[in-house]
């Protein structure tokens, strides 16, 4: 087994571990922390089912963002939908035999790669050109965009510039999953692509990417407007009542 394969295998195991453990810890933190008072942004749905609907519109359509700013919505939504398609397309590396949905998504996944780049470019342009957004941007915001763009570009290069032996890549990935290492092709774009993806996974739990799990825990969005019907005394607040 080449040193390269070993290094990348190690990298992915480490990145996955950081991703899973870090994210689990963060989610556990959100779940454990009480929401002592009802604070949905109203008008809010009055039932749980209504809340599920609100959350679905928020997560799938970015409803609030749409109301806020059509440009950010356009680029942000384009990017996220494209990312979802690209991820589905990538499932072919993880499934044997490939699931039918994944097979169907293949051609769309390719266009999505370009849409994803377009979305990112739009978001970055706004970050640089709109004074208000430039003001609130940190270095990490720019680097995050750079990272995502490089991942997308290196990925597309494997399709359009320097073909990679994807059969071997798939063998490598399946090998990782089965703890039976297979050699990784030593192609430049592939190595860059995989390295950056591992990096993205590793920083996920320590970065703003936490918006992904965070939105589900956001009290202003996930609470029903039922405060007159339900009490929600938090454990720490119950202590005050005894005083």
């Amino acid at each position, binding site marked *: 087994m080449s040193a390269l394969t070993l290094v990348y295998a190690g990298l992915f195991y480490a990145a996955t571990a950081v991703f899973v453990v870090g994210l689990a810890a963060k989610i556990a933190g959100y779940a454990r922390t009480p*929401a002592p008072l009802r604070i949905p942004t*109203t008008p809010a749905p009055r039932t749980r089912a209504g809340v599920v609907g609100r959350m679905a519109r928020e997560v799938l359509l970015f409803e609030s963002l749409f109301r806020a700013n059509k440009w950010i919505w356009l680029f942000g939504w384009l990017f996220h939908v494209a990312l979802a398609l690209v991820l589905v397309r990538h499932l072919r590396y993880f499934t044997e035999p490939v699931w039918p949905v994944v097979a169907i998504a293949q051609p769309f996944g390719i266009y999505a790669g370009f849409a994803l780049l377009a979305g990112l470019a739009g978001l970055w342009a706004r970050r640089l050109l709109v004074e208000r957004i430039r003001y609130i941007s940190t270095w990490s915001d720019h680097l995050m965009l750079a990272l995502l763009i490089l991942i997308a570009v290196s990925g597309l290069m494997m399709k359009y510039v320097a073909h990679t032996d994807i059969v071997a890549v798939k063998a490598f990935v399946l090998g990782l999953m089965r703890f039976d290492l297979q050699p990784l092709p030593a192609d430049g774009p592939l190595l860059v692509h995989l390295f950056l993806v591992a990096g993205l996974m590793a920083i996920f739990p320590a970065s703003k990417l936490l918006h992904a799990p965070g939105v589900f825990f956001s009290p*202003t969005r996930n609470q029903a407007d039922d405060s007159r019907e339900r009490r929600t005394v938090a454990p720490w607040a119950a202590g005050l009542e005894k005083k």
Partner: protein
Amino acid sequence: MGAPDVQAPPLKAYPVIPILQADAMAGSRPYVAAEKLNEAIGFPGKLVDGWQAKAVAKLGELRDRYRSLRVFLDACVHCGACTDKCHFFLGTGDPKNMPVARQELVRKVYRRYFTFAGKHFPKLVGAEDLTESVLEDWYRYFNQCSECRRCSVYCPYGIDTAEITMAAKEVMDSIGMGQKYTNEIIGKVHKIGNNLGLPGPALLDTLQTLEEEVKEETGQDVRFPLDEPGAEVLVVTPSADFFAEPHVFSLIGYAKVFHAAGIRWTLSSHASEAGNFGLFIGNYDQTRRIAMRVREAALELGVKRVVVGECGHAWRVAYSFWNTLIGPFDFLDARHPVPQHVCELTYDLIRRGAITLERERNDRRVVTFHDSCNVARASGMGGIPRGQFILPRAIVRAACTRFHDMAPETIHENTFCCGGGGGLLTDELVELRVKGALPRMEALKAVVDEHGVNFMATICAICKAQFAKVLPYYKFDMGMVGGVHQLVGDAIVLGRND
């Protein structure tokens, strides 16, 4: 300071997002509470030794207590969607009044002390130590947020800057950096029973005078009862209703409604204040203790219902928090909403035909309605979706013939704050208040020009006081603002049920 010579920004025909003017409002700073004020309500008197470590520890404690804070500190992606949504930014151009920038004041400190990235790569992620100048920024800019939640409507993750502001204020209170106006009022409500410091006998006096005045005006014995055991309804209303104009006209309106409907009601000297400034400083225990007076008064007087008068943040606390803070209300009549807004009561009576309004009596008025933030974005009414928008408008339409809403992007959940909420209704912040009212004034101007609107009804004591103050800066008559029950009081037909 005192009464600065404030220039109102010009009213534009359509809203324009200002270009950034760094530090435009860096000079806006409310008075810090004196030692006695802080200590009276259980906070350290002045900036404590080792405040930095204590503040950081407090922030950590709050993060463990409030899921909102914990999630909001992590989830922001700096997308910028909220940047042009705050009336204080729109009115001042100060970039630190953009909601996300305001949050960053706390977030950068949180990152520095609580996150891996901020501990090891502070520059990269914009993390900063809690220095004296950062604390000073907190004090200035968290006292430039009216906790109106407009930003939370538009944020893709529902991040509510008001929650961050409340946390920052709670941290500051815990190290002796309390704000004078708010903490003084909290002291008064504990000591005397209401925000204005109006003692029981003075209150009784005021109410008797009102009875005489209404008798003179209408010839009817409309009562303003205080501490009457056995009444069916306890009314809890902002203390401004007792003597400030235009607030008192709404109180007269409630009294006439009860009179016409034949419902026995009472006010309470123990709970002679609906307002609850504990909310503004984000302090759960204060909010709970201030609210508790209402439960005590209701039990003591043996009432069956509790009705809340025209006060935005009070309605938020009552509607959204009372059940949790001071419930359960199993001693009240479950056939009525608990608590009930006075608009819910009046709306119900109108619908059942239990009271009659003659709209023509308000014919001299062309009315619009200002949705108050806390009612619009933090409560409900009538148990129906969007009831908080529907009910007050239905009452206004029943009470007058000519009604015109302001532009849709400035009403309902999109409403613009009056600029005085959240504990900012103090004279030394007048510049901020005038500028913060700009978006609302622009929307008002449009309906004034187009429809000849001459009355802006609202159901919040802070909105009324704030508008009465700032309207003249924009060349409007301060008498343009008033309560929904002021219109009701002028239109209601008395003496039918006798």
